[in-house]
């Protein structure tokens, strides 16, 4: 089952532009995580935001969390061609554990040079 659903499924932008991806989920969470996957590679953990946090930054990444709407967004500023990848959100249920980490189906981001 997929807890998180990313939107859009695919996004194409020019280098230098900002990219925004959204994630919606269904049940209360302990935390929400974002991962990046380059073609043919494993997932790379980008950022974890806890349910009591509203915003978090890491370099060019900005993640927001709205627990009332059960949604999160990932903003990549000043995108680069190297940011081309699939991006997944994943959630840990409020009373669950990491073994219940559930991934969405991902957003495919293409950054054009």
């Amino acid at each position, binding site marked *: 089952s997929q807890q998180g659903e990313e939107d859009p499924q695919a996004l194409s932008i020019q280098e230098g532009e900002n990219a925004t991806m959204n994630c919606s989920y269904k049940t209360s969470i302990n935390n929400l995580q974002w991962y990046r996957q380059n073609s043919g590679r494993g997932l790379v*953990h980008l950022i*974890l935001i806890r349910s009591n946090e509203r915003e978090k930054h890491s370099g060019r990444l900005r993640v927001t969390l709205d627990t009332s709407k059960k949604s999160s967004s990932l903003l990549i500023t000043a995108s680069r061609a190297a940011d081309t990848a699939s991006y*997944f959100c994943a959630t840990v249920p409020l009373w669950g554990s*990491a073994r219940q980490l559930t*991934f969405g189906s991902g957003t495919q981001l293409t950054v054009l040079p």
Partner: protein
Amino acid sequence: DAGITQSPRHKVTETGTPVTLRCHQTENHRYMYWYRQDPGHGLRLIHYSYGVKDTDKGEVSDGYSVSRSKTEDFLLTLESATSSQTSVYFCATSTSDREDGYTFGSGTRLTVV
């Protein structure tokens, strides 16, 4: 992907044969996971381990078994491979049961013919 090695990287096997995939970590992480990734299904948990000789089933465990005799090694066995088990398999590790992101291996692409 540093610290997690999956072997083999690619394998083609015949229906009905047993197959073992290996995950080796140098991270000294307590928790280890096996996922499969399929188009349209995202990542789904097969089995996980919360310590040496401590394992439990995930969402799609039928037809799979695991073993963890050492902290650093987590083996996934397909007891009798079927075409539906054609997939990309990822191993992941974490230090915490819920408060930490995962570190992923580069994956094993398995084709069952």
